[in-house]
Protein backbone atom coordinates (compact mmCIF):
# COMPACT_ATOMS: atom_id res chain seq x y z
CA UNK A 1 0.00 0.00 0.00
CA UNK A 2 2.86 2.35 0.91
CA UNK A 3 4.50 1.49 -2.41
CA UNK A 4 1.31 2.24 -4.36
CA UNK A 5 0.93 5.53 -2.53
CA UNK A 6 4.56 6.48 -3.16
CA UNK A 7 4.07 5.57 -6.85
CA UNK A 8 0.96 7.73 -7.09
CA UNK A 9 2.68 10.72 -5.49
CA UNK A 10 5.73 10.19 -7.71
CA UNK A 11 3.62 10.11 -10.89
CA UNK A 12 1.70 13.11 -9.68
CA UNK A 13 4.90 15.12 -9.11
CA UNK A 14 6.37 13.99 -12.43
CA UNK A 15 3.23 15.02 -14.27
CA UNK A 16 3.23 18.44 -12.64
CA UNK A 17 6.94 18.91 -13.34
CA UNK A 18 6.50 17.96 -17.04
CA UNK A 19 3.47 20.19 -17.36
CA UNK A 20 5.21 23.19 -15.81
CA UNK A 21 8.21 22.70 -18.10
CA UNK A 22 5.94 22.66 -21.15
CA UNK A 23 4.26 25.75 -19.84
CA UNK A 24 7.59 27.59 -19.60
CA UNK A 25 8.01 27.32 -23.34
CA UNK A 26 4.74 29.10 -24.01
CA UNK A 27 4.90 31.90 -21.50
CA UNK A 28 5.57 34.43 -24.26
CA UNK A 29 2.64 33.22 -26.28
CA UNK A 30 -1.05 33.80 -25.59
CA UNK A 31 -3.28 32.52 -23.97
CA UNK A 32 -0.67 31.15 -21.51
CA UNK A 33 -0.81 33.16 -18.31
CA UNK A 34 2.52 34.74 -17.53
CA UNK A 35 3.57 37.00 -14.66
CA UNK A 36 1.85 39.87 -16.47
CA UNK A 37 -1.59 38.25 -16.28
CA UNK A 38 -4.14 39.97 -14.09
CA UNK A 39 -5.71 38.63 -10.87
CA UNK A 40 -9.01 38.08 -12.67
CA UNK A 41 -7.34 35.76 -15.21
CA UNK A 42 -5.72 33.73 -12.45
CA UNK A 43 -8.98 33.52 -10.52
CA UNK A 44 -10.87 32.37 -13.59
CA UNK A 45 -8.25 29.72 -14.26
CA UNK A 46 -8.36 28.62 -10.60
CA UNK A 47 -12.16 28.27 -10.67
CA UNK A 48 -12.08 26.34 -13.94
CA UNK A 49 -9.36 24.05 -12.58
CA UNK A 50 -11.30 23.54 -9.32
CA UNK A 51 -14.46 22.65 -11.24
CA UNK A 52 -12.63 20.24 -13.45
CA UNK A 53 -10.84 18.64 -10.48
CA UNK A 54 -14.10 18.27 -8.52
CA UNK A 55 -15.90 16.76 -11.52
CA UNK A 56 -13.14 14.30 -12.38
CA UNK A 57 -12.50 13.24 -8.78
CA UNK A 58 -16.25 12.95 -8.15
CA UNK A 59 -16.77 10.74 -11.20
CA UNK A 60 -13.78 8.57 -10.32
CA UNK A 61 -15.08 8.23 -6.75
CA UNK A 62 -18.53 7.10 -7.93
CA UNK A 63 -16.97 4.56 -10.31
CA UNK A 64 -14.54 3.24 -7.67
CA UNK A 65 -17.32 2.92 -5.07
CA UNK A 66 -19.52 1.11 -7.58
CA UNK A 67 -16.67 -1.30 -8.35
CA UNK A 68 -16.04 -1.97 -4.65
CA UNK A 69 -19.77 -2.52 -4.12
CA UNK A 70 -19.89 -4.91 -7.07
CA UNK A 71 -16.94 -6.92 -5.72
CA UNK A 72 -18.56 -7.02 -2.31
CA UNK A 73 -21.83 -8.30 -3.73
CA UNK A 74 -19.99 -10.86 -5.85
CA UNK A 75 -18.33 -12.20 -2.69
CA UNK A 76 -21.63 -12.21 -0.79
CA UNK A 77 -23.38 -14.15 -3.55
CA UNK A 78 -20.77 -16.90 -3.39
CA UNK A 79 -21.34 -17.61 0.30
CA UNK A 80 -22.64 -21.11 0.99
CA UNK A 81 -25.92 -20.30 2.72
CA UNK A 82 -28.54 -22.47 4.27
CA UNK A 83 -31.68 -22.07 6.35
CA UNK A 84 -30.84 -20.86 9.86
CA UNK A 85 -31.85 -23.02 12.82
CA UNK A 86 -35.20 -22.06 14.34
CA UNK A 87 -33.75 -20.83 17.63
CA UNK A 88 -31.33 -18.50 15.81
CA UNK A 89 -34.10 -17.17 13.58
CA UNK A 90 -36.33 -16.53 16.60
CA UNK A 91 -33.53 -14.75 18.41
CA UNK A 92 -32.77 -12.60 15.36
CA UNK A 93 -36.43 -11.67 14.97
CA UNK A 94 -36.64 -10.83 18.66
CA UNK A 95 -33.77 -8.34 18.41
CA UNK A 96 -35.26 -6.81 15.25
CA UNK A 97 -33.16 -8.33 12.45
CA UNK A 98 -35.15 -8.50 9.24
CA UNK A 99 -32.57 -10.21 7.04
CA UNK A 100 -30.55 -13.02 8.61
CA UNK A 101 -28.27 -15.27 6.55
CA UNK A 102 -26.72 -18.47 7.85
CA UNK A 103 -23.29 -19.51 6.53
CA UNK A 104 -23.09 -23.25 6.18
CA UNK A 105 -19.38 -23.53 6.83
CA UNK A 106 -17.19 -24.30 9.83
CA UNK A 107 -15.57 -20.90 10.06
CA UNK A 108 -16.00 -18.28 12.72
CA UNK A 109 -17.84 -15.45 11.05
CA UNK A 110 -20.24 -12.79 12.22
CA UNK A 111 -20.59 -9.89 9.88
CA UNK A 112 -22.89 -7.51 8.12
CA UNK A 113 -22.83 -7.58 4.32
CA UNK A 114 -24.88 -6.34 1.41
CA UNK A 115 -24.89 -2.96 -0.23
CA UNK A 116 -28.53 -2.01 -0.84
CA UNK A 117 -30.12 -4.60 1.46
CA UNK A 118 -27.56 -5.19 4.21
CA UNK A 119 -28.04 -8.49 6.05
CA UNK A 120 -26.56 -10.09 9.13
CA UNK A 121 -24.45 -13.18 8.45
CA UNK A 122 -23.78 -15.77 11.13
CA UNK A 123 -21.80 -18.97 10.63
CA UNK A 124 -22.64 -22.41 11.97
CA UNK A 125 -19.43 -22.47 13.98
CA UNK A 126 -20.52 -19.45 15.98
CA UNK A 127 -23.46 -21.31 17.51
CA UNK A 128 -21.12 -23.73 19.26
CA UNK A 129 -18.64 -21.08 20.38
CA UNK A 130 -20.95 -18.49 21.93
CA UNK A 131 -23.51 -18.61 24.73
CA UNK A 132 -27.06 -17.43 24.01
CA UNK A 133 -26.41 -14.04 25.56
CA UNK A 134 -23.14 -13.57 23.67
CA UNK A 135 -24.86 -14.53 20.44
CA UNK A 136 -27.58 -11.99 21.16
CA UNK A 137 -24.91 -9.33 21.70
CA UNK A 138 -23.29 -10.18 18.35
CA UNK A 139 -26.67 -10.08 16.57
CA UNK A 140 -27.52 -6.66 18.01
CA UNK A 141 -24.07 -5.34 17.12
CA UNK A 142 -24.39 -6.50 13.51
CA UNK A 143 -27.98 -5.28 13.27
CA UNK A 144 -26.74 -1.79 14.09
CA UNK A 145 -24.25 -2.02 11.22
CA UNK A 146 -27.05 -3.13 8.89
CA UNK A 147 -29.30 -0.27 9.99
CA UNK A 148 -26.56 2.22 9.17
CA UNK A 149 -25.89 0.68 5.71
CA UNK A 150 -22.29 0.35 6.80
CA UNK A 151 -21.03 -1.90 3.98
CA UNK A 152 -22.07 0.83 1.53
CA UNK A 153 -20.67 3.59 3.71
CA UNK A 154 -17.35 1.80 4.06
CA UNK A 155 -17.13 1.18 0.32
CA UNK A 156 -17.86 4.89 -0.26
CA UNK A 157 -15.25 6.01 2.28
CA UNK A 158 -12.69 3.59 0.91
CA UNK A 159 -13.37 4.87 -2.62
CA UNK A 160 -13.02 8.47 -1.44
CA UNK A 161 -9.76 7.79 0.40
CA UNK A 162 -8.28 5.97 -2.59
CA UNK A 163 -9.34 8.42 -5.28
CA UNK A 164 -8.61 11.47 -3.13
CA UNK A 165 -5.21 10.12 -2.06
CA UNK A 166 -3.79 13.62 -2.32
CA UNK A 167 -6.02 14.66 0.60
CA UNK A 168 -4.75 12.48 3.52
CA UNK A 169 -7.59 13.83 5.65
CA UNK A 170 -9.96 11.54 3.73
CA UNK A 171 -8.03 8.44 4.84
CA UNK A 172 -8.15 9.69 8.41
CA UNK A 173 -11.90 10.36 8.18
CA UNK A 174 -12.44 6.86 6.78
CA UNK A 175 -10.77 5.27 9.81
CA UNK A 176 -12.74 7.51 12.19
CA UNK A 177 -16.00 6.49 10.48
CA UNK A 178 -15.16 2.81 11.02
CA UNK A 179 -14.36 3.52 14.68
CA UNK A 180 -17.58 5.41 15.22
CA UNK A 181 -19.56 2.60 13.58
CA UNK A 182 -18.00 -0.09 15.77
CA UNK A 183 -18.39 1.91 18.98
CA UNK A 184 -22.02 2.77 18.16
CA UNK A 185 -22.81 -0.90 17.47
CA UNK A 186 -21.12 -1.95 20.71
CA UNK A 187 -23.04 0.69 22.70
CA UNK A 188 -26.28 -0.66 21.30
CA UNK A 189 -25.33 -4.21 22.29
CA UNK A 190 -24.14 -3.11 25.75
CA UNK A 191 -27.42 -1.28 26.31
CA UNK A 192 -29.40 -4.40 25.41
CA UNK A 193 -27.46 -7.18 27.15
CA UNK A 194 -24.82 -5.49 29.32
CA UNK A 195 -21.06 -5.15 28.93
CA UNK A 196 -20.05 -8.64 30.06
CA UNK A 197 -21.58 -10.68 27.19
CA UNK A 198 -20.19 -8.21 24.64
CA UNK A 199 -16.72 -8.44 26.21
CA UNK A 200 -16.99 -12.20 26.42
CA UNK A 201 -17.99 -12.53 22.74
CA UNK A 202 -15.15 -10.19 21.75
CA UNK A 203 -12.72 -12.24 23.80
CA UNK A 204 -13.85 -15.57 22.35
CA UNK A 205 -13.99 -14.49 18.71
CA UNK A 206 -10.96 -12.20 18.95
CA UNK A 207 -8.87 -15.06 20.33
CA UNK A 208 -10.07 -17.25 17.48
CA UNK A 209 -9.03 -14.63 14.91
CA UNK A 210 -5.63 -14.25 16.56
CA UNK A 211 -5.12 -18.02 16.29
CA UNK A 212 -6.20 -18.28 12.70
CA UNK A 213 -4.23 -15.21 11.67
CA UNK A 214 -7.16 -13.44 9.99
CA UNK A 215 -6.48 -9.76 9.84
CA UNK A 216 -9.42 -7.81 11.14
CA UNK A 217 -10.15 -4.73 9.09
CA UNK A 218 -11.09 -2.21 11.70
CA UNK A 219 -8.30 -2.23 14.26
CA UNK A 220 -10.62 -0.55 16.74
CA UNK A 221 -10.27 -3.11 19.51
CA UNK A 222 -8.43 -0.76 21.82
CA UNK A 223 -11.22 1.80 21.80
CA UNK A 224 -13.87 -0.87 22.09
CA UNK A 225 -12.25 -2.31 25.22
CA UNK A 226 -12.01 1.19 26.71
CA UNK A 227 -15.69 1.77 26.02
CA UNK A 228 -16.60 -1.60 27.57
CA UNK A 229 -14.61 -0.64 30.67
CA UNK A 230 -16.53 2.65 30.89
CA UNK A 231 -13.55 4.90 30.14
CA UNK A 232 -14.08 8.36 28.69
CA UNK A 233 -13.12 7.97 25.05
CA UNK A 234 -10.50 10.35 23.67
CA UNK A 235 -11.75 13.03 21.32
CA UNK A 236 -10.07 12.48 18.00
CA UNK A 237 -9.11 15.54 16.01
CA UNK A 238 -6.87 15.59 12.95
CA UNK A 239 -3.26 16.51 13.65
CA UNK A 240 -1.99 19.83 12.21
CA UNK A 241 0.44 18.01 9.88
CA UNK A 242 -2.47 16.04 8.45
CA UNK A 243 -4.40 19.25 7.79
CA UNK A 244 -1.36 20.88 6.28
CA UNK A 245 -0.59 17.93 4.00
CA UNK A 246 -4.23 17.87 2.88
CA UNK A 247 -4.17 21.58 2.02
CA UNK A 248 -0.85 21.16 0.19
CA UNK A 249 -2.14 18.07 -1.62
CA UNK A 250 -5.23 19.96 -2.80
CA UNK A 251 -3.08 22.90 -3.93
CA UNK A 252 -0.80 20.48 -5.72
CA UNK A 253 -3.77 18.89 -7.54
CA UNK A 254 -5.20 22.29 -8.45
CA UNK A 255 -1.81 23.41 -9.80
CA UNK A 256 -1.63 20.32 -11.97
CA UNK A 257 -5.17 20.69 -13.29
CA UNK A 258 -4.60 24.43 -13.83
CA UNK A 259 -1.42 23.75 -15.75
CA UNK A 260 -3.12 21.14 -17.92
CA UNK A 261 -6.06 23.53 -18.52
CA UNK A 262 -3.66 26.27 -19.57
CA UNK A 263 -1.86 24.03 -22.06
CA UNK A 264 -5.15 22.69 -23.34
CA UNK A 265 -6.35 26.28 -23.79
CA UNK A 266 -3.17 27.06 -25.74
CA UNK A 267 -3.58 23.98 -27.89
CA UNK A 268 -7.19 24.85 -28.65
CA UNK A 269 -6.12 28.38 -29.46
Amino acid at each position, binding site marked *: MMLIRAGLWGSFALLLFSCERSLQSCLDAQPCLGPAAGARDWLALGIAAGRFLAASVGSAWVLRTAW*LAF*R*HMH*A*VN*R*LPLTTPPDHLRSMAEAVGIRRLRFID*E*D*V*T*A*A*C*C*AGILRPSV*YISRDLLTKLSQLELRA*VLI*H*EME*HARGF*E*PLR*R*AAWRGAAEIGFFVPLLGWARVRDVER*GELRADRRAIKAVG*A*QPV*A*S*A*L*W*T*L*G*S*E*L*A*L*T*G*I*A*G*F*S*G*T*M*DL*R*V*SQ*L*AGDALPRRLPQPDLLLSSVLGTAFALALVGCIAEIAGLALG
Partner: protein
Amino acid sequence: MPNKPLEAAVSQLGPLEGRIMRLVWEGKLQQRFVVRDMQKLMPRLAYTTVMTTLNRLAEKGILTATAVPGRRAHQYVAAVAPSAFLARGSRREADAMVRRYGDLALVAFADRIDRLSPAQKERLRKLSRP
Protein backbone atom coordinates in the same frame (compact mmCIF):
# COMPACT_ATOMS: atom_id res chain seq x y z
CA MET B 1 -7.11 -42.84 25.96
CA PRO B 2 -7.00 -41.55 22.35
CA ASN B 3 -4.72 -38.63 21.57
CA LYS B 4 -7.25 -36.18 20.13
CA PRO B 5 -4.90 -33.81 18.25
CA LEU B 6 -3.03 -36.78 16.78
CA GLU B 7 -6.21 -38.49 15.60
CA ALA B 8 -7.55 -35.22 14.15
CA ALA B 9 -4.26 -34.48 12.40
CA VAL B 10 -3.98 -37.99 10.94
CA SER B 11 -7.56 -37.78 9.67
CA GLN B 12 -6.63 -34.70 7.63
CA LEU B 13 -3.95 -36.56 5.70
CA GLY B 14 -4.21 -39.16 2.95
CA PRO B 15 -4.40 -42.87 4.03
CA LEU B 16 -0.72 -43.68 3.57
CA GLU B 17 0.46 -40.25 4.71
CA GLY B 18 -1.71 -40.66 7.80
CA ARG B 19 -0.24 -44.09 8.61
CA ILE B 20 3.29 -42.77 8.26
CA MET B 21 2.71 -39.66 10.33
CA ARG B 22 0.97 -41.69 13.04
CA LEU B 23 4.13 -43.79 13.41
CA VAL B 24 6.29 -40.65 13.46
CA TRP B 25 4.12 -38.75 15.94
CA GLU B 26 3.67 -41.79 18.19
CA GLY B 27 7.47 -42.08 18.41
CA LYS B 28 7.66 -45.55 16.88
CA LEU B 29 10.87 -44.51 15.15
CA GLN B 30 13.92 -42.60 16.28
CA GLN B 31 13.54 -38.84 15.99
CA ARG B 32 15.65 -38.86 12.81
CA PHE B 33 14.97 -41.71 10.45
CA VAL B 34 15.64 -42.81 6.89
CA VAL B 35 13.33 -44.49 4.37
CA ARG B 36 14.60 -47.94 5.33
CA ASP B 37 13.60 -47.41 9.01
CA MET B 38 10.06 -46.57 7.98
CA GLN B 39 9.84 -49.41 5.52
CA LYS B 40 10.78 -51.90 8.27
CA LEU B 41 7.57 -50.91 10.04
CA MET B 42 5.58 -51.22 6.78
CA PRO B 43 7.10 -54.30 5.14
CA ARG B 44 4.23 -54.73 2.70
CA LEU B 45 4.99 -51.42 1.01
CA ALA B 46 7.65 -51.00 -1.65
CA TYR B 47 10.69 -48.90 -0.78
CA THR B 48 9.88 -46.42 -3.55
CA THR B 49 6.29 -45.99 -2.32
CA VAL B 50 7.50 -45.12 1.17
CA MET B 51 10.17 -42.78 -0.22
CA THR B 52 7.68 -40.97 -2.48
CA THR B 53 5.25 -40.51 0.39
CA LEU B 54 7.96 -39.24 2.74
CA ASN B 55 9.08 -36.76 0.10
CA ARG B 56 5.50 -35.59 -0.38
CA LEU B 57 5.18 -35.05 3.37
CA ALA B 58 8.44 -33.08 3.30
CA GLU B 59 7.13 -30.94 0.42
CA LYS B 60 4.04 -30.19 2.51
CA GLY B 61 6.29 -29.10 5.38
CA ILE B 62 5.09 -31.84 7.74
CA LEU B 63 8.49 -33.56 7.70
CA THR B 64 11.91 -31.98 7.24
CA ALA B 65 14.30 -33.82 4.93
CA THR B 66 18.06 -33.32 5.17
CA ALA B 67 20.69 -35.01 3.03
CA VAL B 68 22.87 -37.55 4.85
CA PRO B 69 26.51 -36.46 4.34
CA GLY B 70 28.36 -38.73 1.94
CA ARG B 71 25.27 -40.73 1.00
CA ARG B 72 22.41 -40.32 -1.43
CA ALA B 73 19.84 -40.96 1.29
CA HIS B 74 17.84 -38.40 3.24
CA GLN B 75 17.08 -38.24 6.93
CA TYR B 76 13.59 -37.21 7.95
CA VAL B 77 12.33 -35.56 11.10
CA ALA B 78 8.85 -34.33 12.06
CA ALA B 79 8.63 -30.61 11.30
CA VAL B 80 5.43 -30.01 13.27
CA ALA B 81 3.57 -31.55 16.19
CA PRO B 82 -0.02 -32.72 15.54
CA SER B 83 -1.50 -29.66 17.31
CA ALA B 84 0.66 -27.26 15.29
CA PHE B 85 -0.31 -29.09 12.12
CA LEU B 86 -3.98 -28.66 13.01
CA ALA B 87 -3.52 -24.97 13.82
CA ARG B 88 -1.78 -24.46 10.49
CA GLY B 89 -4.63 -26.26 8.75
CA SER B 90 -7.26 -24.06 10.33
CA ARG B 91 -5.18 -20.97 9.51
CA ARG B 92 -5.08 -22.07 5.88
CA GLU B 93 -8.84 -22.60 5.91
CA ALA B 94 -9.38 -19.17 7.39
CA ASP B 95 -7.06 -17.56 4.83
CA ALA B 96 -8.94 -19.36 2.06
CA MET B 97 -12.20 -18.05 3.51
CA VAL B 98 -10.93 -14.49 3.45
CA ARG B 99 -9.57 -14.91 -0.09
CA ARG B 100 -12.85 -16.38 -1.27
CA TYR B 101 -15.12 -13.88 0.37
CA GLY B 102 -12.79 -10.88 0.26
CA ASP B 103 -14.45 -7.70 1.32
CA LEU B 104 -17.11 -9.57 3.23
CA ALA B 105 -14.88 -9.21 6.25
CA LEU B 106 -15.53 -5.50 5.85
CA VAL B 107 -17.99 -5.21 8.71
CA ALA B 108 -17.07 -8.16 10.91
CA PHE B 109 -17.89 -8.25 14.60
CA ALA B 110 -14.53 -9.27 16.00
CA ASP B 111 -11.01 -8.08 15.67
CA ARG B 112 -7.84 -9.85 16.73
CA ILE B 113 -7.12 -9.54 20.41
CA ASP B 114 -3.41 -10.04 19.81
CA ARG B 115 -3.42 -6.46 18.53
CA LEU B 116 -4.24 -5.21 21.99
CA SER B 117 -1.60 -4.04 24.43
CA PRO B 118 -1.06 -6.53 27.30
CA ALA B 119 -2.86 -4.17 29.70
CA GLN B 120 -5.94 -3.80 27.46
CA LYS B 121 -5.96 -7.53 26.82
CA GLU B 122 -6.01 -8.18 30.56
CA ARG B 123 -8.86 -5.69 30.99
CA LEU B 124 -10.89 -7.42 28.30
CA ARG B 125 -10.22 -10.81 29.87
CA LYS B 126 -11.50 -9.53 33.21
CA LEU B 127 -14.53 -7.85 31.66
CA SER B 128 -15.45 -11.03 29.84
CA ARG B 129 -15.77 -12.99 33.07
CA PRO B 130 -19.34 -13.36 34.37
